[in-house]
Structure formats: C-alpha cells, structure tokens
C-alpha cells in the first residue's frame, strides 16, 4: 500500500504503523513515514486528509485532546516519543512548531523570543544575544530593531509569522514543524517565508503542511501525499509532481479533486 521511499540520508523521524482516532473516528490509518534529516518534507493532500493531524502527532500536541487515541510508534532521534520516560516538554523543545495563524504572545517583540529561552534554562546573560541572532536568522531583525519592546501584536501578519519562526528557532530545535505557515499571509510575505525555509533547511529538518502545491514544489525536497487518513505516496518532490506512481496522486496533482 505504501512503498518505502528511497531516502538516502538518515531518517530523523520514523513513523511506523501509526493510527490515530478521535473518539470512534479514525483520522490516521497505518502511517509509515521516514523523514530525512536536514531536508524539507512537505505533506500535501485535500482538506481533512489528516496532514495537520499527523504533524501535530510529532510534537505530541494531541496530548491536549482527551479524546485522541494513538497506536503505533514514532521515534525521533531513535527515541520513542510516546514512551513514558519521554518528557513531553523536552520533546517539544527539540521539535518546534510554527502555526497556521501567527500566534505571537501578548508580550513585547523581544519577550516573544526570549520567553522560550527563559523557560528552557538558557544562561541569562546569553539571552539578549540569542534573541538578536534568532531575529536576524528569520530576516526580521532590521524591521524590528528599533521597537523591540513594543507589543508584538502591532506587527503585520507576515512579520508576526517571521517572529514566530524566530521564537521557534531561538530554543535551538532540531526539527521545525510548519502547519500551513503562509495560508494567512499575502503573496509577498509568503515569498519571504519560503526564502526563509530554504535558508533554514541547512540547519534544521523541516516538515511543512501546505495546501499550495506550487509551494511544495518550491520549498520541499520530499513530498508525502495523503488522502482520507492514509499516506498514499512518499517520494522526492520532483518525482511526486512529475512522475507519481499512484493514479490517486496524479489526479490530485493535476487538480482533478481536492
């Protein structure tokens, strides 16, 4: 049903036999997926196919939904994330997340980035420098350097999203999960975020959910196509978009449904 992808680099995330239920409803069905390290992997598929659900499994955000039930195994750095000895806050520090709608904290721009550093116990005297570094890496420093202590909510949507990326990379994760990070942004902001993603993949493994197939082509190395809770096909992005193996994938890529 799902072929093993020809991933040459070492997988950092290994998903095997993953099933997820909300109450009685099965949302993810027997997912197998190896996410390669320091690459961008895109998850595509029609609305409700489970791609966001799969993404939120990887940093255990489903812990917040009491009716979510998960079977199967997910390992990150060869560590079982559902093992009872796994500390969920340590996992989430390692696996950062950027959300669909920019969600800066109701704090200053500086504090938005510094917060993650404080709670993760980075040395106090290093924090100002680390905040600046993260803002620079997210290409937002020049726009905010004169108003670091103003509320973050005064920034534009695109700036807020880059601030959220800065906040995520500040705590030095290994993996960044992005849940349709551009869907609430204008084309210019989208372009900036996409450039940023290509820059970030040198240092981080990125898994991005996107509705925009052109975006998947532009930013990702690998693409997984999901449909009705199943992972239909996973391969290098150019293969998925030019020469997919499954008819279902081809129909979706060509816009016959979805």
């Amino acid at each position, binding site marked *: 049903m799902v072929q093993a992808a020809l991933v040459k680099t070492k997988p950092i995330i290994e998903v095997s036999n993953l099933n997820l239920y909300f109450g009685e409803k099965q949302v993810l069905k027997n997912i197998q997926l190896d996410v390669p390290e320091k690459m961008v992997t895109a998850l595509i598929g029609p609305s409700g196919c489970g791609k966001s659900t799969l993404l939120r499994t990887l940093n255990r955000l489903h812990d917040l939904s009491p009716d979510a039930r998960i079977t199967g195994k997910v390992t990150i750095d060869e560590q079982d994330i559902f093992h009872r000895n796994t500390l969920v806050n340590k996992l989430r520090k390692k696996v950062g997340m950027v959300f669909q709608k920019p*969600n800066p904290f109701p704090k200053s721009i500086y504090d938005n980035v510094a917060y993650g550093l404080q709670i993760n116990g980075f040395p106090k005297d290093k924090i100002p420098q680390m905040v600046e570094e993260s803002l620079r890496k997210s290409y937002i420093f020049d726009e905010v350097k004169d108003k670091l202590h103003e509320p973050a909510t005064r920034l534009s949507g695109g700036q807020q999203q880059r601030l959220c990326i800065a906040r995520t990379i500040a705590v030095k994760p290994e993996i960044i999960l992005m849940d349709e990070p551009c869907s609430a942004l204008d084309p210019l902001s989208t372009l900036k975020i996409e450039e940023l993603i290509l820059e970030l993949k040198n240092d981080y493994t990125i898994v991005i959910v996107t509705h925009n197939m052109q975006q998947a082509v532009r930013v990702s190395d690998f693409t997984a196509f999901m449909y009705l809770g199943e992972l239909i096909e996973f391969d290098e992005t150019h293969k998925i978009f030019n020469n997919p193996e499954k008819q279902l994938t081809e129909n979706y890529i060509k816009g016959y449904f979805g």
Partner: protein
Amino acid sequence: MNFKTIFKENPLPATMLLLCTLLVCTFLFLILGEIFSKGLSALSWSFIFDAPKNGMTEGGILPAIVGTLLLTLITTLASLPIGIACAIYLSEYAENNTTTQIIRAAIRNLAGVPSIIYGLFGLALFVQGLQLGTSILSAGLTLGLLSLPYIITTTEEALKTVPQSMREGALALGATQFETIRDIVLPASIPGIATGVILSLSRAAGETAPILFTGAAFYVTGLPGNLFQEFMALPYHLYMLTTQHQSIATVRPLAYGTAAVLILLVFMLNIVAFMIRNKFRNQLK
C-alpha cells in the same frame, strides 16, 4: 450608520430601545439624586474622620468606613486565591465530563443563593462551628464564601477568552502546562479577572445580611483592633440608622450621608477595576 439614519430606517424599534434606556437612566439618577441631595449636607471631613457621638445622633462614621475597608480586605484574602485557583483548575486542568459539569452548575447555583443564607451558614460554620465568635474574621470569611462563585465564574470566563493558539504556542516551545498558564494565559486574562473580581468584591462590600449575624455591631467604641472583635460596617450602619434607631427622624441626614459614602466607596473600587483593565489592555495591544 449614524443616529439619525438609524431612526429614519427603523423608527419604531429604535424609539422603543431608546425609551427603555432612558427609563433605566432615569431611575439610576433618581436614586443617586435622592441620596446625594439629602446626604450632601451631612458630608464633611469630621463626618468621615470622627467616631459617632451621643447615641449616634452626632459625629462621624469613621469606624464603619474602616470596618468596611478591613472587611473587604479579609474577604479578598479569603476568596481571591482559592477562587482563582479553582477557576484555573476547572478551565485548564479538569476534564470536561459529567462531574465537572455538575461542579460548574453547583457553583453557578451558589451565585444565586440569597445572601441571608450565607449569613446563617457563616453563623453556623465560622461563629459557632470554628469558634471564631461574632468577629470581623467570621464576617469576612462569610463574605468570602459569598464572593467565591462570582470570582470563579468570571475568572473561568476570562481564562476561556485566551485563544487556544496561545497555549499551543507556549507548549510548542517546550513550556510545561504550568508555565504556560503562569506566563501566558494568566497575564493575558488579567483584565477580565480584575474586572470580575472587583465587581464581586464591591458587591460584597455593600452586603448587610451575611454580616448581620457574623460580626457587625450596632456600635463599637474605636476602630477594630484585632480580627476577633466585632466591628461597624457601612451597610449595616445604614440599616440601623434607617430602621432601628430610637430617633429615626433626627439621624435621617446621617443615614443619607452614610449611603453617599458607601456609594462613593464602591464607585472608587470600580474605578480601580477600570484602571487595572485599561493598563493591562494597553500593554497587550
């Protein structure tokens, strides 16, 4: 749409709604006008800073003012920490199942229990059961119980207004649930919490029935010295002057003066709530 076009397009509903609003305002101003026109003559510095004299036909109401302030302080200390903790538990930690639904319904029902019932309960529990006697402590704890349902309900509503995406943002950075609540959720909901808390406390400050049996006294010499003494309070003082005094007609101006002071005190509490709310709202925007 401005006022005029609204009236032109919907003359009947707009007029009815305006009349209702005016009716409410009329009664409000009638009450305030009555109290302040008759009470203003009694208001003076000595009325506020003196103790009552000559069987309360002369002098001021300082013990009652201090009593009410101290009582409100005890009420706050008794109800605020428990109320907020309870709201945080219900909103952030508890599963949404039948048990918590029943607890919530019970808390909302408590908010509707007549205050005299709280008075009787306070008498049974604090005055007699815990042997605290008729004292400012018993009365403050009783008022604390009265305020709790309001504080819990309004705090829970305020916590609910914090978007789930804020919580997820903090958790995704590696914050524990406790850190998320302490650093993100609580600060974001302070305006709502402060408003609800101060409104319920100012309501408690004006209550008579719950302190009637638990500690309020008709007359005490001097100010309350410790927590186990009886005390004077503005609403109870007002009640006594209006209904129980031997020469009611003579003390009528003093009663109106007391009412004016009580209203001003509650008004000031509300202004504090307003200022706290604005201060934090501006910080967040």
